[in-house]
């Protein structure tokens, strides 16, 4: 790094450092889910046929709907940052609100989906699941853990965006200083990316 590039270093506030830190944090999230994807890969490889059978009970339509919802929420999140950078505070606030709303919608679908599975007896420790093949037990184990952990991230993301809305109202996030919102956006997009991979791996293999 050249000398000039380093001169801004000791200023009180360093958005570039925050951005590096945020991305490193996202990478830890990536390898956290990476561990789960590695497990999925191994179990799917060793129990191919059973995974196909097990995936049949998942509803592709709800999965596709949820994918579209999350992708759209990513769009509104990105738009809210553009809006604040153009100085359009109210528009940014509405986009953030819509993003949270889409998050809720996603969770609502998830709730229906999980209740459906639980109603037909596909939940950990249930007798009907234990009577199935081992590959199916593993499929549902991974299904609950991976979508569950993802849903937890969606909830955290919604809380973070809600805080950002408050910051925006109070003008802590404004036209010139909006890194916080951008960081929240990065987190939300990462959650989206993880879903982009979860979707075909669980809903599109039957």
């Amino acid at each position, binding site marked *: 790094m050249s000398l000039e590039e380093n001169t801004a270093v000791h200023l009180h506030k360093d958005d570039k450092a925050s951005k590096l830190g945020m*991305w490193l944090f996202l990478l830890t999230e990536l390898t956290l889910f990476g561990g789960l994807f*590695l497990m999925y890969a*191994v179990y799917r490889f060793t129990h191919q046929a059973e995974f196909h059978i097990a995936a049949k009970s998942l509803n592709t339509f709800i999965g596709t709907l949820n994918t*579209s919802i999350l*992708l759209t929420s990513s769009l509104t999140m990105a*738009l809210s*940052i553009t809006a604040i950078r153009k100085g359009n505070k109210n528009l940014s606030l509405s986009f953030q609100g819509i993003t949270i709303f889409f998050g809720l919608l996603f969770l609502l679908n998830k709730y229906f989906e999980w209740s459906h599975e639980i109603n037909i007896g596909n939940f950990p420790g249930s007798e009907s699941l234990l009577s199935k093949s081992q590959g199916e037990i593993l499929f549902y184990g991974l299904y609950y853990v991976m979508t569950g952990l993802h849903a937890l991230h969606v909830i955290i993301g919604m809380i973070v965006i809600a805080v950002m809305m408050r910051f925006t109202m109070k003008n802590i996030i404004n036209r010139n200083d909006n890194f916080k919102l951008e960081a929240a956006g990065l987190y939300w997009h990462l959650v989206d990316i993880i879903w*982009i991979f979860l979707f075909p791996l669980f809903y599109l293999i039957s």
Partner: protein
Amino acid sequence: MEDKEEQSLNNHSYSAYIITWLALITLTAITVAVAGIDFGNAIIVIALIIASIKTYLVLTIFMHLKLENNTLKVFIIIAIFFLIVTFALLFSDYSNY
């Protein structure tokens, strides 16, 4: 560096995002449609390729990676490289299952 930030203000107009979103939705539709066709084992490869394209779009446009400096890009490459190599090594154990 300052120039790039200026760019990010102008480049990421509302329309660029909406076009990206349309592309993402289209790719989702494609991956669902393709899943109905019986490609055998190739299906997982196709699904993962489409997912990777979608991820690339989200990373570069929604997450502004296109406009970032190289340090960040190298960071991401390191993490992805680690996951891929780990995957390969892990499967050296499972390959002749």
